[in-house]
C-alpha cells in the first residue's frame, strides 16, 4: 500500500447558517485506505463527508471553510470549480437514489455522459466494467434497459456504486451506504468494499461500529462536530486514547 496521503483535510469548518456543524476537523487518508467515520447521530459526520465533494454548500444557507486537499489540489481554492471536483470524488448516499426515469444502463453511464463521453462502444464497455466492479453485472446483464428503480434496495445501492465508479473517481464517499439495507445486502456491499479499496480511496460514514471495525483501516470518531479521536481502526477499537471514544464504542452512550 502506498502511504502517501491522497486526501488531506485541514481545519475544516462547516456551517448551516449560524450553526457550526463541523468545528475544525483535520485528518488525512492514504491511497486506497478505507477511512470510517463514526459517532452518534447529529455529530456532523455526514456534513463532514459532504464537504469532501463540496456538496454541503448546495443546501440553502450552508457553507464551509478550511482546506481539503485531494491529490494535492485544494478543492476549496477559489479557482476550483465544484463541478469538476465532483467528477473526481464519487458519492454513495444513505438511501439508494438511482434516477427513476433512467434505465439501469443509463444510470451507470449518467456521469460519463455528463463528462461528455458519447461513443456508444465506450459507454457499453465502461458500464459493464462498473457493474462488474459493483458485483451487479450477473444480476442485471439481461435487463440493462429496465428502469433502475425496478431493482431491489440492495441492488439499487450497488447500482449507485456502479454509477459512482463509472467516472473512475479517486475518492469514493459513502454516507451510511448500508443503513437502509437488509443484512444480506449489507454483507454483499461490505464484501464489495474490500474489493473496491484496491482501486479507490474510500471514506465511509457508518452507524454500525462492527462494520467500521470489519472494513476500515483507520477510524475517526466525531462528537458534536469535533474530531475526538483519529487513528488505526484496531487501535481505536481496542485501545482508545480518549474516554469519550471508549464510552461510545462500548455502547455506554450514543
Amino acid at each position, binding site marked *: 500500500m502506498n502511504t502517501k496521503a491522497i486526501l488531506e483535510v485541514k481545519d475544516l469548518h462547516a456551517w448551516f447558517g449560524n450553526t457550526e456543524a463541523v468545528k475544525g476537523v483535520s485528518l488525512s487518508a492514504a491511497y486506497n485506505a478505507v477511512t470510517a467515520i463514526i459517532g452518534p447521530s447529529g455529530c456532523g459526520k455526514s456534513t463532514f463527508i459532504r464537504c469532501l*465533494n463540496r*456538496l454541503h454548500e*448546495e443546501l*440553502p444557507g450552508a457553507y464551509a471553510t478550511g482546506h481539503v486537499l485531494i491529490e494535492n489540489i485544494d478543492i476549496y481554492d477559489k479557482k476550483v470549480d465544484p*463541478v*469538476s471536483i*465532483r*467528477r473526481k470524488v*464519487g*458519492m454513495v*448516499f444513505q*438511501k439508494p*437514489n*438511482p*434516477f*427513476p*426515469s*433512467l434505465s439501469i444502463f443509463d444510470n451507470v453511464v*449518467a*456521469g460519463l455522459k*455528463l*463528462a461528455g463521453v458519447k461513443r456508444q462502444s465506450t459507454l457499453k464497455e465502461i458500464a459493464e466494467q462498473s457493474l462488474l466492479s459493483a458485483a451487479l453485472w450477473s444480476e442485471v446483464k439481461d435487463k440493462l434497459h429496465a428502469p433502475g428503480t425496478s431493482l431491489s434496495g440492495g441492488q439499487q445501492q450497488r447500482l*449507485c456504486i456502479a*454509477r*459512482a465508479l463509472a*467516472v473512475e473517481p479517486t475518492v469514493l464517499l459513502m454516507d451510511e451506504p448500508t443503513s437502509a439495507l437488509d443484512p444480506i445486502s449489507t454483507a454483499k456491499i461490505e464484501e464489495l468494499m474490500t474489493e473496491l479499496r484496491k482501486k479507490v480511496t474510500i471514506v465511509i460514514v457508518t452507524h454500525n461500529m462492527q462494520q467500521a471495525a470489519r472494513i476500515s483501516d483507520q477510524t475517526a470518531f466525531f462528537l458534536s462536530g469535533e474530531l475526538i479521536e483519529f487513528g488505526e481502526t484496531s487501535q481505536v477499537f481496542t485501545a482508545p486514547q480518549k474516554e469519550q471514544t471508549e464510552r461510545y464504542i462500548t455502547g455506554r452512550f450514543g
Partner: protein
Amino acid sequence: MQSTWYPINMSRFKIRRRSRREAHLGDLVFSYLLRLLSLGLALLLLMIGFFLFRGAFASISRFGWDFITGSVWDPVQEIFGSAPVLYGTLVSSLIAVIIAAPLSVGIALFLNELAPPLISRSIGFLIEMLAAIPSVVYGLWGIFVLAPSLRTRVEPALVKYLGWIPLFSGPFYGVGMLAAGLILSIMIIPTIFSLSREIFRTIPMAQREAALALGATRWEMMKISVLRSSKSGIGGAIILGLGRALGETMAVTMVIGNRAEISASLLAPAQTMASVIANEYAEASNDIHLSSLIEIGFLLFVVTFIINGFARIFILRESKS
C-alpha cells in the same frame, strides 16, 4: 385526488363495525349525509350533461354530423355549421398553450431550483394571484391596452416582416385570434405554473444530490433529476391549462372579434365555442338557433370533460410513482 372516493367506502366499513356494538346515531347520520352529498354532486354532473344533450337534440337530429363539419354559421338562414368555432377554440387555445407552457414551466423551475426563498415565495404568490383576476378584467385590459398596441405596433411589424407566411397576412384590427391567444396564455400561466411547481416539489432532494454528486452542473441536474422525472406530470399540467383555455369565455369574447370564419391568418377576427354562446344566446331568434348553441355547449362540455380527465390521469400517475 383519488382518495376522495375512499370516505364513502370507509364510512360504510365503519358503520358496519360500529353497529355490531352500539351504533352512534350522530356518526350514522353524518356519514349518510356526506354520502348523499357526494353522490348528489356526481348526479348533478350527469344531469348537466343530460340537459345539454336534451336541449341540443333538435339540432343534432336536424344537422347530424354536418353540424361539426359545416363551415357556415348563419342564424338568419338557419344554417348551423360549427367548424369555424371549433377551429377558433382549438387555435386560440393552442396559441395560448404554446406561449404559456414553456414560460410557466421555466418560471416554476427557476423559482423552485434557483431563486432565493424570499423571491421564490413572493413571485410565486403574485403569479398565483393572476388566477384570481376576474376574466372580464382581462377582457377590458385586452380591449384597451393589448388590442390597440397589437394594432399599432406589433401587427404592422408582423405583416411587414412575416407577411409572406399566411399566418401573419391580411388586414389586421388588433382584436382577433392572436389577441385571444395572448390573453388566454396569460390566464393559463397560473394553472400550469402552480401544478408544475407542485410536481417539482415532490422530487426528493436525494435525486438532485445524485446528479450533483456525479458532476452535473445546475442545468444538467435540472434536466436529469427534475425535468426528466416529471415529464408526464408536466404534460398533465399543460393539458389542464389547455382545458382552461378551451372553456374560457368572457375575455376571449371581448378580444377575438367575433366573426365565425376560418381564416389562415392569426390576425383575422375569429370566434370560439364559448364566445359564440355568450354572444348569441341572449338574442337567439328561434328554437333551432337555441338548440344549435346548446349543442355547441354540449360539445364543449364533452371535450373539456375528456381533456380534464386525461390530465388528472397523467398527474395521478406521476404522484403515485
